[in-house]
């Protein structure tokens, strides 16, 4: 099947408006006859469910957590971008569009990104109207901060809990519709398959996680807002339950999987402390606004710090290497995430890591505390030369901005970041790849939509900070409610989709077969045993830097591990009860397939771009020596993989990316 992105004709700035003016609409009375399923209740799924219900559709929403409000969007810290230009620093829709395409290393779809930038300002208006308590200035107006990879302040925030506040906003919009009976909410339900009838997505099979009951749910369209697949690495900043299962089942039913190798390794996470570790914790990128990143210049100081004979704060300025400021003077500590992550890895690989494992760099707030302290003292008319006073005042400002993050750091690491620099290291955070969708956010399966992190479209090969929240809400509040109407206008006479058809029965039987296999298999190893092994292969060979040899090995190792899993996995208990191990087994089974496709995709892409860095594709000389080398001539395409049984048999379809409004340039942050 040829890929049709269905991008509307006309100038980029008019596409979305023209499109909206010409789509088919569903009359309000008919919307009552149409059912929609939304899987996932994060920013994308939650906002979509609320808006579709408000429009009049009958919505069934599903989440595996005990409440829609717990979806992992809640953990997003830093902020949300919007081209409001409240700061008057030159921001515009075009500039947000440009920064996002450039930040994504020219591997995203221009028309989608422009639409995203266009609706961004509306998101802020909407959220404020819903009562989201964004940070404000003393004049009562909204405050902004800046984020990595851009030169303007366009990020709206609510301390370090922006995702929480936005999700609670979407959840409150959902609550209103649940209260009105327009959304039927299914908590603690996991989607285990998509059901296609007559080639269209017409329902899902779910498992009630409390009772184990397998249920059939039908609808006229199915929407997946099920997040990313970073947990394929076992250790990531994702929640423990975050998984690829819904997306992977959709893939197996015909939805192409795009760019699986584009994974964001976030530069500022708390380093791994030992083998017992179950997950990694992010320290918001917003910290790079005020924190300066460094390692010692000299090996003797590295050793002294590791041995704790030297306190990091006592090392003289002249003996510190602020390597981001040194290498990228124009952007300094605010280079995009992929650049900052690779730079940290480079210093640690060279032996300058500052903790016991050699995998950490410093993020230091001492100079910000000084700067803010002096400023506050000046404003209050106090003595700017009183060191103790300046420090106290400065610490207060930092506490106001990042208090929750500092507290989190102190609880985990047992060090006080107000007085000693934080230690950070890159960790798997966000997946730019996902289910392929067209301009309508529809997958290659008619009637199956995919929104938010679960799809691939807006971030290209790398995501700029504060863009994920923007995309999730844009898709759910403002894009999908239009595009899905165009599709559903054909379904006004269809009537309720019956669930007693052969298609539903077959899908249910398949789900039952797998579950029965897990609870009856007399294996030797727990699910986590396999998940951890998979994670090690992924991190070592498909992680921050990749090469042909490692990727080829990873593909065969994952295949072997998968075979071992299906032979030797052990799941206690039964299906007919709450059984966390059983739920995990299904998720890991899917990760074991995705992991291989991920490596295969990385092997195919013989260039370095964004979150995908190939060691054999670097600039060999000139000012950009050692930086990632993109190959626009041969690789300016989206890799969309079609499922054919084994991941190794997946067929590659290419969506050629066209850039009519932006000139492709090497990203330079120097």
């Amino acid at each position, binding site marked *: 099947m040829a890929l049709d992105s269905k991008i509307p004709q006309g100038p980029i700035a008019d596409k979305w408006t023209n499109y909206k003016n010409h789509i088919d609409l569903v009359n309000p009375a008919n919307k009552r006859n149409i059912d929609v399923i939304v899987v996932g209740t994060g920013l994308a799924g939650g906002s979509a469910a609320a808006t579709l219900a408000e429009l009049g559709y009958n919505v069934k929403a599903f989440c595996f957590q005990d409440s829609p409000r717990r979806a992992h969007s809640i953990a997003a810290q830093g902020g949300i971008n919007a081209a409001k230009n409240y700061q008057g620093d030159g921001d515009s829709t075009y500039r947000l569009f440009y920064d996002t395409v450039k930040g994504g290393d020219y591997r995203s779809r221009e028309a989608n990104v422009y639409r995203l930038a266009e609706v961004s300002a509306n998101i802020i208006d*909407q959220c404020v109207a*819903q009562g989201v308590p964004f*940070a404000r200035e003393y004049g009562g107006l909204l405050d902004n901060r800046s984020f990595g990879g851009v030169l303007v302040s366009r990020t709206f925030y609510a301390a370090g809990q922006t995702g929480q506040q936005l999700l609670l906003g979407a959840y409150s919009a959902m*609550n209103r519709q649940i*209260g009105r009976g327009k959304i039927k909410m299914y908590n603690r339900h996991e989607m285990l398959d998509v059901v296609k009838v007559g080639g269209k997505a017409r329902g899902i099979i779910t498992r009630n996680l409390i009772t184990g009951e397998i249920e059939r749910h039908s609808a006229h369209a199915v929407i997946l807002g099920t997040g990313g697949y970073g947990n394929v690495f076992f250790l990531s900043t994702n929640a423990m339950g975050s998984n690829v299962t819904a997306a992977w089942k959709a893939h197996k039913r015909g939805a192409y999987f795009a760019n699986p190798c584009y994974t964001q390794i976030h530069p500022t996470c708390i380093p791994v402390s030992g083998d017992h570790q179950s*997950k990694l914790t992010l320290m918001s990128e917003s910290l790079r606004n005020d924190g300066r990143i460094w390692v010692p210049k000299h090996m003797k100081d590295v050793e002294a710090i590791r041995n704790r004979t030297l306190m990091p704060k006592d090392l003289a300025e002249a003996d510190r290497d602020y390597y981001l400021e040194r290498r990228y003077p124009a952007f300094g500590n605010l280079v995009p995430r992929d650049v900052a992550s690779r730079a940290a890895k480079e210093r640690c690989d060279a032996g300058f890591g500052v903790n016991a494992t050699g995998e950490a760099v410093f993020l230091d707030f001492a100079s910000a505390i000084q700067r803010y302290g002096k400023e506050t003292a000046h404003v209050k008319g106090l003595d700017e030369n009183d060191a103790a006073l300046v420090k106290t005042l400065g610490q207060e400002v930092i506490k106001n901005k990042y208090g929750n993050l500092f507290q989190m750091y102190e*609880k985990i690491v047992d060090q006080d970041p107000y007085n000693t620099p934080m230690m950070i290291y890159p960790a798997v955070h966000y997946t730019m790849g996902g289910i392929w969708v067209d301009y309508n956010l529809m997958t290659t399966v008619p009637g199956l939509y995919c929104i938010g992190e679960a799809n691939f479209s807006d971030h290209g090969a790398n995501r700029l900070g504060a863009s994920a929240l923007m995309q999730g809400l844009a898709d759910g509040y403002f894009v999908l409610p239009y595009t899905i109407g165009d599709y559903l206008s054909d379904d006004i006479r269809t009537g309720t989709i019956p669930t007693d058809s052969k298609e539903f029965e077959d899908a249910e039987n398949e789900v039952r077969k797998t579950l029965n296999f897990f609870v009856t298999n007399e294996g030797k190893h727990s699910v*986590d045993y396999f998940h951890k092994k998979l994670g090690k292969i992924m991190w070592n060979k498909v992680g921050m830097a990749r090469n042909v040899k490692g990727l080829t090995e990873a593909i065969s190792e994952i295949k072997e591990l998968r075979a071992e899993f299906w032979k030797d996995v052990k799941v206690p208990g039964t299906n007919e009860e*709450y059984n966390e191990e059983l739920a995990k087994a299904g998720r890991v089974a899917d990760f074991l397939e995705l992991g291989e496709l991920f490596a295969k995709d990385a092997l195919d892409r013989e260039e370095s771009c964004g979150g995908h860095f190939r060691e054999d594709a670097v600039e060999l000389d000139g000012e950009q020596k050692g930086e990632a080398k993109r190959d626009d001539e041969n690789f300016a395409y989206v890799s969309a993989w079609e499922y054919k049984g084994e991941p190794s048999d997946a067929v590659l379809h290419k969506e050629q990316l066209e850039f009519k409004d932006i000139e492709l340039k090497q990203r330079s942050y120097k």
Partner: protein
Amino acid sequence: MNLTLKIWRQKNASDKGSMVDYKVSDISPDMSFLEMLDVLNEQLVNKDEEPVAFDHDCREGICGMCSLYINGEAHGPDRGITTCQLHMRMFKDGDTITIEPFRATAFPVIKDLIVDRTSFDRIQHAGGFISVNTSGNTIDANAIPINKHDADTAFEAATCIGCGACVASCKNSSAMLFVGAKVSQFALLPQGQVEATDRVLNMVKQMDEEGFGNCTNTGACEVECPKGISLENIARMNREYLKASLKG
């Protein structure tokens, strides 16, 4: 560290349940409390025993999914954190640790340490929102200036993660800190004024129907709240409720 764990095991909602003793060894002080339970569960799975069921998800203190009543305290002995952020360095080698679910009539046990907190959701369905359509056709965000102090206070109330520690810590199983926080967030913002009367009446009514007890001002909820939600929110809710009742 070597530890003895006394854990509440209950097969399902209708099972009676009992405390069962377990031993874990070689626990590192850098582990989180839930990672320590992961170690126990791995041990149980390898012995073909059923692992201990407990709620958890983000493991960074924000989703509100984890619960646990540890040595008689919601979220354990540390302050200002959830169970997932509790670290084993708070305990000593040889300690015996008692682990129970959050107990309240409105939080029935699902299995072992997992309780059903959907009563919180139902309170929110009754009025925890501002009735604005999600069309994007609202006024410009900066057309509603909000005094920074009010915005910050509303934000502090809004940081409630809905974990239910307040209910578990209260001798009356009162949910007033939770509901107070939700009512306060909107009561402090101009956008929330239009529906203020109905909101507080409906939410309080639902709270009572769910079987939560009343507040007798002992303040235990505030002490155990991982997000430091202040008792002032209960006072504000009472004022709002009184105002709404008089309007009536």
